């Protein structure tokens, strides 16, 4: 019989402690806050489930949630197909491979707030390259501090610019792992490009694409810094995504109770969607 050695658990211990302090204990505190009211000074009053009920029936929350789903939906619809297309058209061997890979990886190396600031300046109507060009050369009225449509177009373009590379790199990794024999077999059978994509490349990319969609869903659903720096949630409330609204409630108004209730609902949504997606995508793999 094999001897059981449980020493490996000790190596997991540091991670456990870290997770306890940066996730578990703050999370428990948020749960405690969500059922109480405070005016500061560490004095709390029992509030029951009032915050949850108020929030679930508040138009402000529904609107922010709707904007959040719209944002995540749009960027997923753009980034996933675009990423796959770019990965398919990248060279598989030769001099251009590292050039493409490094160029692709560059946007992801830039910190979130820098991305926001960059796009902010880029789109300023009087001095920004894009803003000036649109307004003065093309004559299109483009000002994201005035028009909600321009603001939305800008945050979506920014996110596509920043994160499509992630989908590209993951899809590319899936593509290069396909053995040549598959392509040779397809050639002998006279398969069309579409058939090769549909029956060889897509199934082989399924796992990395699952991870890519999951990561992009979670990241975009929790996005805060970039739209905050770029539009600050405006004009009006038109780009106030869920996280921006949450910070407004928690730190702007110092309503810790409602903010805690909101973050728990936020968390429950992220958890459910991620779990559902992952379970459905990997359902047939486990036999």
């Amino acid at each position, binding site marked *: 019989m094999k001897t059981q050695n449980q020493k490996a658990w000790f190596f997991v211990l540091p991670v456990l402690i870290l997770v306890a302090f940066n996730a578990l204990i703050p999370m428990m505190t948020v*749960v405690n806050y969500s059922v109480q009211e405070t005016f500061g000074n560490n004095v709390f009053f029992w509030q029951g489930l009032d915050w949850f*009920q108020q929030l*679930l*029936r508040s138009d402000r929350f529904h609107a922010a949630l709707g904007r959040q789903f719209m944002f995540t939906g749009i960027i997923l619809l753009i980034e996933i197909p675009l990423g796959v297309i770019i990965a398919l058209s990248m060279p598989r061997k030769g001099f251009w491979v590292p050039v493409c890979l490094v160029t692709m990886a560059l946007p992801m190396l830039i910190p979130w707030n820098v991305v926001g600031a960059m796009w902010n300046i880029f789109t300023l109507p009087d001095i920004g390259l894009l803003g000036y060009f649109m307004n003065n050369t093309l004559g299109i009225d483009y000002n994201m501090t005035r028009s909600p449509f321009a603001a939305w177009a800008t945050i979506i373009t920014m996110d596509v610019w920043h994160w499509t590379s992630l989908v590209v790199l993951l899809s590319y990794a899936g593509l290069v792992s396909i053995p040549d024999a598959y392509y040779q077999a397809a050639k002998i059978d006279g398969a069309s490009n579409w058939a090769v994509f549909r029956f060889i490349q897509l199934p082989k990319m399924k796992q990395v694409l699952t991870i890519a969609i999951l990561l992009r869903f979670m990241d975009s659903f929790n996005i805060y810094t970039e739209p905050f720096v770029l539009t600050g949630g405006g004009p009006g409330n038109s780009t106030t995504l869920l996280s921006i609204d949450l910070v407004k409630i928690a730190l702007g108004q110092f309503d810790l109770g409602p903010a805690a209730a909101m973050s728990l609902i936020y968390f429950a949504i992220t958890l459910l969607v991620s779990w559902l997606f992952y379970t459905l995508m990997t359902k047939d793999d486990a036999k």
Partner: protein
Amino acid sequence: MLSWMAWTWPTAFVFIGIFSAMGVLTALEIRSPGGAERKGVLGLVTTRGDRLFISLLGTVYIMLAWLGFLGMPLWWPLGICIAWIIFCFWKV
């Protein structure tokens, strides 16, 4: 020391409940390893831990839905939740 966490008894019981459920699962896992894996009625392959996760997540949504659409009190959804948890461990 713990005053900043603003503990209340009801929230403490929630966490005591979750952690003792995890403790029971650990004990069961030591007694019969493998997680009692099976394919349930939803077509998912689940272990005991998965079933606990699904039942807790479902409970959250049942409660939130009732609170949002019908409001207090929450005795009826509590009954639905218990039925859901039993269903999860029995069939899923």
